[in-house]
């Protein structure tokens, strides 16, 4: 059984009278523990595909499955629960909550998931340690560099021990050294913890290390899939 499976996914938008087809009949499957890079030119539908895989967006047509279960028609509450417990998200612009400390940012999804205080504390410390941010746990995002914020965001994505990490251009806002560190960290998450990693990226560094590369062109899967 595949971890994620998309079958005939289409996504269209309306822009005035024009219909834009962002994704056109995408069918693919991703296995447990895979490291998949989604690449393609701007506007090719990479982020849309990732949003649909992560249940942040809904397809216009087609089916999607998580561990064999059809999640296309799930209600808002069930989808929230799925995102909370099974998916972790890392964004290009980090998107940490500015009024919370690094520690609290990592802790928040656990609170939502109902993890007990003691267990939360242990896991937050462990995760911040793992991303090399334990010394800056009490700092707010505004007091951290871009690379540091992204490392906290990775710890946050891992907080509820998800099955999949979705990362949208995670190195896009970072200089090459910081970008390399973040990429190493994500690869470590994939290798050491066996988490499935789906990264949308233009970065050749990312595509060169990914186990599989999915290339999108005009909303369609390009034949040169590795």
């Amino acid at each position: 059984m595949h971890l994620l499976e998309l079958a005939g996914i289409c996504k269209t938008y309306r822009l005035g009278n024009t219909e834009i087809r962002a994704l056109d009949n995408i069918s693919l499957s991703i296995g447990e523990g895979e490291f998949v890079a989604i690449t393609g030119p701007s506007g090719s539908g990479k982020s849309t595909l990732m949003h649909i895989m992560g249940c942040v967006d809904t397809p216009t047509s087609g089916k999607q499955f998580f561990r064999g279960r059809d999640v296309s028609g799930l209600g808002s509450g069930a989808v929230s629960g799925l995102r909370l417990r099974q998916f972790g998200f890392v964004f290009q612009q980090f998107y940490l909550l500015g009024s919370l400390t690094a520690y609290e940012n990592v802790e928040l999804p656990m609170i939502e998931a109902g993890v007990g205080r003691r267990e939360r504390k242990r896991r937050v410390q462990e995760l911040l340690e793992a991303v090399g941010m334990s010394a800056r746990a009490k700092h707010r995002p505004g007091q951290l560099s871009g690379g540091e914020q992204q490392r906290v965001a990775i710890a946050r994505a891992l907080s509820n021990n998800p099955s999949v990490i979705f990362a949208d251009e995670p190195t896009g806002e970072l200089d090459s050294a910081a970008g390399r560190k973040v990429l190493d960290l994500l690869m470590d998450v994939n290798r050491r913890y066996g988490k499935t990693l789906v990264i949308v990226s233009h970065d050749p560094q990312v595509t060169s290390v990914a186990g599989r590369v999915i290339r999108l062109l005009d909303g369609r899967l390009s034949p040169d899939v590795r």
Partner: protein
Amino acid sequence: MYAKLALREVLERRTGTALAVLAIGIATASLILLGSFSLGLREGSAALYDDTVDYWVLPEGGSAQDLIVNTEKTMLGSVHRSTGDILSIPGVSGATPVLNRVMYASKAGSDPASIFAIGIIPGNFSSAPFQVDALTPGDPYYAGGDFTGEVIINDVTSGLLGIDSGDYMNLNSSGAGIVSGRHFRVVKVISTQEYSTTPVVVLHISELQELTGNRQGDRANYIVASGKDVGGQLRSLFPGDTVLGSAGYVAYAFEKDRKLGASGAAAAGVSLVISALFISTVMILSISERQKEIAVMRAMGISRGSVAKMLLFESLILSLLGGFTGILLSFLGRGLIEWGMYSLFGMRGVASMHYLILLFGLSVAVIAGMVSSIVPFIAAERIRLPEVLG
């Protein structure tokens, strides 16, 4: 965590928070002050009410409102004779004409202050609201005797003028003529703290008539009487006037309470709307600035309920801050108004702060906070995650 998050968001949006808190504070303070004035009016008028009064005889065209608001437009004439007629009715146990006027009073060498003067016939009416047995019974001056110059004051007047039992005070219908006004001796100071904060003086009606120019025609505002089942006889005695029985008075009191209640409800409604509008506006502005943050929270799996909880906390924090600011502002406002009323009219105790009114003001602010969290929640629900997350 959501409460902490909400508190930090509110504290970090300094300008927006300050504006909302101030606006809610002003709305709450207005509500509290209006309530306080209503209560002050009730307490002030309470000096005139007494459960043992069975009948009120009001002049033709008069209304129950005249019981507390004295007017020159309609008055009863020949009230001593009429009162004598009432007392001759079998079953009537007491009756007195009542003349109400705002007068100027002062202690020698002091500035005049406005006080509420009530002229009655002591001894004719055993259950008068004020215990007036210290005054010489009857109305000697009316009967051709000497001007007694006796007054009973309440503790508010005593404090206002700085006089006590045995002291003398001047009383006149205008502040300018106070020095040449009549001198009166305080024969008793009574406590009205439980039901009135209005400065009151009670004296023989004919002496008040003399001071106010109502002696000619022997005029008074109304006559009160006690007795059982004498309404019909009173009505036949005063065919052109208004005779209110207990039921009429109860209806009047109910109507008055209803009007006060309606005023309070209207003020509460306005306060609620103003507060809710400000909270909603500040929250919607905040949400438009934090669209990405909220979208990320939702993407992470934070439920709608938790987002709603966070927004509710933010609204409640704003409304509580506004409510407490309103209480502080209302004390400040009350102080300013009391100072102004005393400076201009020599009146004190026009507003009465009661903890229930303060609690009501705070409750209205909190309800506004709860109500207004709905609008930002709808705004947060409209955020399209894929569009905001890019």
